[in-house]
């Protein structure tokens, strides 16, 4: 049997994706930055930089530093705010025929809810990804994402505000990520995505100072992949809703490992900085893998891990 065009379609709640390859928030700008390198409409979805109700300036520099097989960032959620996103960024993505997922963040439950209400009803937004996990902003994300009760409350508040599909993005900086995943599932999430960055730190031994102005930052890139893979595997077993795998994915092989571990879809992050074409390359690679292994559908791959 020769497979000509394997079926790559996946579903997260009511969200239908033509394939499982998405971009990770904060690593793909608002999409437009990549338009000369990637056919945006070919991706499963473009997940845009995290948006807050009000614009945020972000943290003082230095904001990034390279570490072994990875990088630390403390961008501080710099973004243009909801109004400018809707007026200036979204129209481009609509014109480019991209499937758009908006990553949202807030300081309080009311904030998340108000933002979800504001985004609801705008043509061209296919789903929301709720960032309850960013480690960078002192009063923000971390409290929600590390406490099951709070994580559930945020999810419920957003659920009340919109019937758009909701993906809750989890932080790995917890003792038991499955407890958080179950809590947001109970709160009405259509899916979970993981992992956000791992909290880390770099020190300059010459100056005896932290390298980042924020002192600590989030670790991403190939260095985090084994941790991410383990967490995706654990969460996929713990919840019924689809899991989106994120963390150090640089190649089709990396992506396939996440799918085998139980991820329904994947997001490519730091790898976009090294090769802006990574997402499309991965898409082709997954399709080739399915053909080589005589699988007519991606569903045969998802969760196929044999232990």
């Amino acid at each position, binding site marked *: 049997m020769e497979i000509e065009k394997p079926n790559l379609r996946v579903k997260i709640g009511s969200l239908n994706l033509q394939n499982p390859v998405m971009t990770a928030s904060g690593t793909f700008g608002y999409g437009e930055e990549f338009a000369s390198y990637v056919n945006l409409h070919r991706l499963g979805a473009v997940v845009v930089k995290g948006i807050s109700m009000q614009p945020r300036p972000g943290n003082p520099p230095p904001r990034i530093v*390279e570490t072994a097989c990875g990088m630390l960032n403390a961008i501080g959620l*710099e973004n243009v705010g909801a109004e400018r996103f809707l007026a200036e960024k979204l129209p481009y993505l609509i014109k480019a025929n991209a499937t758009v997922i908006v990553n949202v963040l807030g300081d309080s439950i009311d904030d998340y809810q108000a933002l979800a209400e504001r985004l609801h009803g705008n043509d061209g937004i296919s789903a929301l990804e709720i960032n309850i996990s960013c480690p960078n902003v002192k009063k923000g994300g971390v409290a929600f994402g590390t406490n099951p009760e709070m994580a559930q409350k945020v999810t419920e508040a957003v659920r009340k505000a919109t019937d758009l599909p909701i993906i809750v993005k989890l932080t790995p900086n917890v003792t038991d990520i499955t407890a958080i995943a179950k809590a947001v599932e109970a709160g009405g999430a259509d899916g979970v995505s993981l992992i956000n960055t791992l909290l880390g730190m770099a020190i300059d031994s010459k100056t005896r100072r932290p390298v980042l102005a924020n002192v600590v930052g989030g670790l991403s890139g190939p260095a985090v992949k084994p941790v991410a893979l383990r967490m995706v595997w654990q969460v996929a077993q713990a919840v019924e809703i689809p899991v989106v795998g994120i963390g150090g994915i640089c190649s089709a092989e990396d992506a396939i490992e996440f799918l085998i571990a139980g991820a329904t879809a994947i997001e490519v992050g730091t790898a976009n*900085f090294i090769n*802006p074409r990574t997402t499309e390359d991965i898409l082709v690679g997954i399709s080739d893998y399915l053909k080589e292994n005589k699988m007519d559908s991606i569903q045969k791959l998802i969760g196929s891990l044999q232990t």
Partner: protein
Amino acid sequence: MEHSLTRPSEVIRSEALGSDIFRLTIMAPQIADTAQPGQFVMVQAASGQDPLLRRPFSIHQVSGNGTVQILFKVVGRGTRLLAATTKGDFLSVFGPLGKGFTLAKQNKNIAMIGGGMGIAPLLFLGKWILRSGFSGKLIALLGARNSAEINSLQEDFNHLGITTAIATDDGSRGHHGLVTQLMLQHMDPGEEWQVLTCGPYPMMRGVAEICQGMNWPCQVSMETMMACGMGACLGCAISKPNDLHSYQHVCKDGPVFAMSEIVWK
């Protein structure tokens, strides 16, 4: 979509200009055809994942037959790997990126002031200025650690017919001291000057101070850590003057800025 990432670029030539300074000539026609002086490229130093990120380098020269040059000093693992590349190797080179130098329309005299590896973009810039039919005075004031670091670069400028003055930290060539101390020796305050500079931050701050005093327009090329070089990561932020709660991004809004756009501290 055809661009510099479609295929890796061949190293045509690798030269050592002193013990830790290297010049690579790379075949990259898409970059050579469109590059502007002051723009940069992101070069992947490793074939694997360590070091992970590309490294930014100013475009040092381009040629009509499609080659691009970078000039760099070995300061860490990435530059050490690049220094070891030889003719026939392939590198992934992404660019041209960023906003380069712009020339004021008036035929003011132009001083290019470079320190260390900040000299790299000035050769391309000098050629560009000459080719634009510029008829004023064009000089290059160049600062280096020592004579060995600057010898062959100075020749390259002189070869184009650009007058140079040199300052070295150890006095082994030219003025013994800072390149900023050459400014008022070589730039007649009675004339109108336009200054284009690239180098270490303290040097550019010194240049900007003199230019502010003399009321000379000045453009500076800034350096920060960069992950993407294309406006996606927001890692290359620097403060904006008069608005300390918002940032500009060196890879996209720069690397070349007017001196008034920089917070000098």
